[in-house]
């Protein structure tokens, strides 16, 4: 029996040497090792062996099975390997073809810039206040120290709806509404963003509709130096740590002292270029200490509290920030324009 087993091994190994296909290999596995295969056939005769012979022959049978299995597995692996290799060879892509992009829309540049400005002030502890775009003469002018027939009203030509109702010319009425809502409480620390309207012929730098962001701070002992400090913090966060500010005396009916604020030119860093008309400075803000009349009308005692206010045009900052050549692009909404603001 031992010889038959050894013979089977020789025969099987011999035959396995000539296997070319996975099918042939499988056939041989069935032929030799299957339930009805040759090895099982031989071992079925073990019943006739003595108790001493049985373990010996059993061992030989196991060795023969192991030897055949080992070769079959080896062959099997080789076939698998070859198949994988073939598949990989067939599976090449043109990696230069474009992929499927995620959709990319855009936030309008005016809102993008407004949000950026808002975030700087939120970081400085401000909350955001809003109010109507159609306002009463009282909130837009009178409560801001601009009585009817005051020459300073010429500074802002307005769109009236009736004698007493108009499109707001600045977001300052929101400051008045905020003061009244605070009922004399301090501190007040708000910014007021929104659309405003002034009668102006549209051209590359003027628009009858534009966006403002104004700020108002009221508290005990608020000083003009605090205003300068606040604006410096703002421009450095907005335009970079190298940005400086310069205040020039000016006039607004609702603040005194008042100032126009220049910031270091974003284009040339202050060296002088076409953008800043070779001055090194760009005018971006108006500001001042809240006029005592405005505090009084807002329900505060100017002997007890003081405050500052500032305001800027969002369009102006967006024009500077992105180097846009014409303010009208903001309202034309050409997709070729909007698409450029999809970036972070």
């Amino acid at each position, binding site marked *: 029996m031992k010889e038959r087993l050894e013979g089977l091994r020789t025969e099987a190994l011999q035959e396995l040497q000539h296997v070319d296909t996975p099918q042939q290999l499988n056939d041989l596995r069935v032929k030799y090792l299957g339930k009805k295969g040759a090895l099982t056939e031989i071992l079925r005769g073990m019943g006739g062996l003595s108790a001493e012979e049985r373990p010996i022959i059993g061992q030989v049978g196991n060795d023969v099975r192991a030897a055949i299995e080992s070769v079959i597995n080896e062959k099997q692996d080789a076939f698998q390997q070859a198949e994988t290799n073939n598949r990989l060879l067939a599976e090449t892509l043109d990696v230069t*073809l474009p992929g*499927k992009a995620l*959709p990319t*829309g*855009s*936030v*309008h540049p005016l*809102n993008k810039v407004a*949000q950026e400005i*808002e975030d700087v*002030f939120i*970081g*400085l*502890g*401000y*909350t*955001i206040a*809003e109010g*109507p775009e*159609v306002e009463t003469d009282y909130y837009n002018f009178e409560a801001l120290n601009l009585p009817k*027939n005051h*020459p*300073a009203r*010429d500074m802002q030509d307005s*769109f*009236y*709806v*009736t004698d007493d*109702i108009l*499109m707001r010319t600045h977001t300052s009425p929101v400051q008045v509404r905020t003061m009244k809502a605070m009922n004399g409480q301090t*501190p007040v620390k708000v910014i007021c963003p929104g*659309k405003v*309207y002034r*009668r102006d012929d549209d051209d590359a730098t003027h628009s*009858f509709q534009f966006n403002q962001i104004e700020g108002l701070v009221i*508290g*005990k002992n608020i*000083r*003009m*130096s*605090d205003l*300068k*400090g*606040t604006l410096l913090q703002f421009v450095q966060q907005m335009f970079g740590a190298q940005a400086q500010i310069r205040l*020039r*005396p*000016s*006039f607004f*009916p609702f603040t*005194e*002292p*008042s100032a126009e604020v220049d910031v270091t030119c974003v284009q040339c860093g202050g060296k002088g270029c076409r953008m800043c008309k070779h001055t090194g400075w760009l005018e971006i803000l108006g500001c001042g*200490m809240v006029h*005592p009349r405005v505090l009084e009308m807002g329900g505060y005692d100017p002997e007890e509290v003081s405050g500052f206010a500032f305001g800027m045009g969002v369009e102006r900052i967006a024009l500077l920030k992105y180097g846009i050549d014409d303010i009208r692009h*903001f309202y034309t*909404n*050409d*997709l*070729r324009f*909007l698409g450029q603001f999809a970036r972070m």
Partner: protein
Amino acid sequence: MRVSYKWLNEYIDLSGFTGEELAEKMTRGGIEIDVVESRNKGVNGVVVGYVKSKEKHPDADKLNVCKVDVGTGEELQIVCGAKNVDAGQLVPVAVIGAVLPGDFKIKRAKLRGVESQGMICSAKELGLNEKLLPKEQQEGILVLPAATKIGTPIGEVLGIDDQVLELDLTPNRSDCLSMIGVAYEIGALTGREVRLPETVINHTSVSTESLVSVKISAEEHCSHYSARYIKGVKVGESPLWLQNRLIAAGIRPISNVVDVTNFVMLEYGQPLHAFDADRLPGGRIDVRLAKAGETLVTLDDQERKLEPHMLVITDGEKPIALAGVMGGASTEVTGETVNILLESAKFDGGTVRKTSRQLGLRSESSIRFEKEVDPARVIPALDRAASLIAQLSEGLVTEGIVEASTAAVKPVQVPVSLEKINGYLGTELSRLEVQTIFGRLHFEYELSDSNVFTVNAPTRRGDITRAVDLIEEVARLHGYDEIPTTLIHGDVVPGSLTKPQSIRRELRKRLSDAGLHEVVSYSFTGPERTKLFPALAEHTNPVKLAMPMSEDRSVLRTTLVVQLLETAAYNRNRKNESAALFEIGSVFHTDEEQLTRLPQEKHRFAALLTGNRTEAQWNAKASQVDFYDAKGILETIFAVLGLTASVSYEAAQPEHFHPGRTAAVLLHTPKGNEVIGYVGQLHPALQLQADLADTYVLEIGLDLIYELADSGIEYKVLPRYPAMQRDIALVVDHEVAAAKLTGVAWEIGSELLESVRVFDVYTGEKLGAGKKSVALSLIYRHGERTLTDEEVTELHGKVVLQLEQSFAAELRK
């Protein structure tokens, strides 16, 4: 205000400052200088010449050949084409090598065969502004006065070797509408002294009172009226120096009398007016309000209808001038005028302003009165002008001033403490520093031991009335740069966005991330466009502007969608046929015809989809947007806002929407269901009109959403027991809405049903006409145990049965 450097130098020493340096100093001190303009526009080498003879050009009718002496000893032959050239004239001559504006170099030339050694110039060729030239000088060559010296450089003669500073004055600094005011400002900035003009009047023995009387009937509108009388004037051209001053300031010389009134107005800031005294037969002046129905022909020959709020100067009977705005034609000073009544007054600013606004008549005079002239200069300006007129016109000033006044000028005293100044500015100024600043401003003050300054505000500075006005003066003269930068004392409060702001930001972010582009449109639109979508306009009226710039921007928008449509059409015309747009903004509604209260401002969100959802690419076909893309936007944002369960959609047919492809969006509020907007396809007729492909729009109100949005995330334990899924397909009538089917499923299966999803909708011949198959996937789950097959089968069976009964549905096998 245009300020000539040379002229200004007569009132204050400007040595050491160029025009540009002066401009910078003033700008940093609060008076902004727009431009520093050189008056010489590029003239070089032009001198005064004497035309000795003039002969006709042998070969050209229109040319003359002149012999000219320019003081060099050599006689020049110059061919000249001007009609007015003549022998005996003094004229500007550009000699060979001279340069005229525009870099025009004068060379030796032959004109029709005759040599010309230079050019005789017109005023225009010398770069003078034509509009500012006296009429005689507007055509032909410039003829200079007889006294002009031959050979003098023309820049000297015309005073154009000068610079003009253009002041951009803020409304509070009307004191700088005068040369003297500007001199005071520079005095404050530099510490130099101001030199005021000296006036001497040599009067006749005739008393003015015997010739004229003055009365103010409208007391509230005129606090002071004064006049002088000048006899025997010869009205004629002003001397060049006077003309040059006016031209530099941008005023056209007219005649010696009128020019002096303008000159003194520029000098003192006090407008003056000269009447032809012989046209005032009664010799009476009465300042009163106009009467209804009165008219006046003003100097510009326009007949003005007067109204009872307008202040007029009358001759006791009829109006002869609009006070402070413009004189009347009937009393105009002309070449024949012999006697002059000269007026200097203080008219109320508001009164002048109202009249000038209403008549659309803004003059150098009204600009100054509007901002309140200095009451202390009424008389000095009158005297100065009278003396100059007498001097330049050979007239005689009669003795005394006739005047009337209604209110004494009250001195304004303003106290401010050193402590307050420093506390307000954040500075540490000393008593002496503040004293120096007030000193330079020529502000008189008393200083107490406790460092309180009590300042007597000068009348020329009407803007100084409160302590802050003084603090501002200190701040600007100390220099804004010198104020330190500090941080606010006190409690730090956290900053934050409000809920509506957070929601809008979230929408912007989600929508832009999903491929939509945000637009910002004008709030103004045309009236017909507000009527396009009455359902979105909520059947209200648009708000009308009183004086719109144009018809198509005459009302406030009532919807956002209209402008999205226009934006899509604009982009389509630029070959962008696909667009995914959104806007967040206000619309304005009112139920009034004429507003008596503020309109309703409603925050809206709108979107528009047109063309392709995705463009064709090598691995994907182009696909067009459809209704469900638009609806999907809403569903996504409602999911983000925690409102999915509070929103439903119902088929609707609002005007200008596709009647079969539009839904009303309903929000379930505590008060019941409210339609907050619509989503649907544009009506095909409108699409065609706008030249757009299939276009889907939506617009919803945000105000209720702000209220109800729920941003609170509540964690739910992950399911621990398995779910069971049952899929069914139901054949129903075409009209049966999918939401009805899912609604019934929820109603019956609620105890175990976790979700119902429509995963297929099919129509086809096999089903028969008017039928469709809707496939639902139902998932059942119990939170605390594993479901048994039997209980799911039982419940699911009930669901199916109810669906079959409610909708005559057939289960598709």
